């Protein structure tokens, strides 16, 4: 079998990083983000990245790390609210941002991965995010044409993987990861747990092995919480 498991992020990313490349990353907020691979990209020093990710991390965590080191030139995101360094770079013109509605962004990743170059959606019609985009009427309603995204590299975080590269995600850490995994020309996954062949139930695999070219055991699993909201235990 072609070996997919690599010993660490550096090995898994070797030969894949080029200045000016496009990287799509799974994760929503700080949940389900490929922490270990982000560290690996930071260590590599690759620059001029166009990062496609729903959010931009916070100042010292997630993609925020790569913003700090000025490795990212452009973000394609739906919401970037929690990052002061982001704000500074954006306002000073160092960083470019392309906003996409969250569902449109998710669908653009899925479309790119599924060989669909464009699709129509009602989302965003009549707003600034549809400006300059083609529209079309279907049954009397106006829809905007959105493009599929294919990235040079996809980095995703999963819960479990087998050696074939089949992935299972955990709870809301799934989020953008399955689509991100499909829309990279190469996809590297980091996982919390590697299991043996046959240990994943074939009916319960979220990302089939065909989408994953390289695999590492994640060593950075901080899973920082943005909004720790608690209820008092009933007495």
């Amino acid at each position, binding site marked *: 079998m072609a070996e997919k498991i690599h010993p660490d992020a550096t090995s898994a990313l070797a030969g894949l990083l080029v200045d000016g490349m496009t990287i799509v990353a799974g994760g*929503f*907020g*700080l*949940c*389900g983000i490929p922490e270990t691979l982000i560290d690996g990209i930071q260590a590599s020093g690759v620059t001029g990245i166009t990062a496609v990710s*729903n959010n931009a991390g916070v100042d010292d965590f997630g993609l925020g790390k790569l913003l700090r080191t000025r490795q990212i030139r452009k973000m394609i*995101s*739906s*919401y*970037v*609210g929690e990052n002061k360094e982001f*704000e500074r770079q*954006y*306002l000073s013109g160092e960083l470019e941002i392309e*906003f996409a*509605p*969250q*569902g*449109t962004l*998710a*669908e653009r*990743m*899925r479309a790119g991965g599924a060989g669909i170059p464009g699709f129509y*959606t*009602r*989302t*965003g*019609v*009549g*707003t*600034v*995010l549809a400006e300059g985009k083609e529209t079309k009427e279907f049954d009397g309603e106006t829809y905007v044409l959105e493009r599929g995204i294919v990235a040079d590299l996809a980095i995703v975080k999963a819960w479990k993987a087998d050696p074939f590269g089949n992935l299972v*995600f*955990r*709870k*809301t*850490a*799934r*989020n*953008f*990861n*399955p*689509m991100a995994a499909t829309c990279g020309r190469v996809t590297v996954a980091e996982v919390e747990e590697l299991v043996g062949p046959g240990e994943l139930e074939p009916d319960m695999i*979220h990302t089939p092995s065909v989408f994953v070219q390289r695999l590492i055991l994640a060593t950075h699993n901080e*899973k*920082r*919480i*943005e*909004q*720790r*909201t*608690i*209820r*008092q*235990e009933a007495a």
Partner: protein
Amino acid sequence: MTDMPKGWSRDQMAARAAAEIKDGFYANLGIGIPTLVANHIAPDIDVTLQSENGMLGLGPFPTEAEVDADIINAGKQTITELKRTSYCSSADSFGMIRGGHIQLSVLGAMEVAENGNLANWMVPGKMVKGPGGAMDLVAGVRKIIVLMDHAAKDGSAKFRKACTLPLTGTNVVDMLITNLAVFDRADRSSPFVLRELAPGVTAELVRSLTEAAYEDGLATRQAA
């Protein structure tokens, strides 16, 4: 403006929105006041709450011991799961939303226009954080309820002839609940109708603090 009646509290506005939720509904509650709606759903009403990051069947906030970093809602708050809960990808989650499978969404707003346009995501000149899932929700969910203060702090109208801020969606608002009044409309080709007033609030006050045209449905309601 100090002698303007305050009208409903945020919790009362949330409770009014909660009354729109029917048994068996699937609903998405936005961040902020809309989140309070969940606290006011009647015990005999079975509702399944959706979070657009990819969770259907949201439970309450966790106890300290229950906190799980992998279970968060669209506001990135830690939450819990229920017996009915299912997780899905964000693409599938927005498929539910865009495909019209969610019956109701409650959102905050900066401005609502008389034609149902909504502005709730950016203020020119301020840092733009992005639309998140708001544009998808208003474009896809079958009934959109907006909760907002009736007027801005300077007294200027937020329910307007036309939105002055960049839009989140066009002709998407079905019901508007403010601290002073409730408006709804029969469908998206109908005008808004004033339906209810908060205690101590007069129709004249609402009229004076509203730029939008709307019909007065109070008489009809009294007669009914």
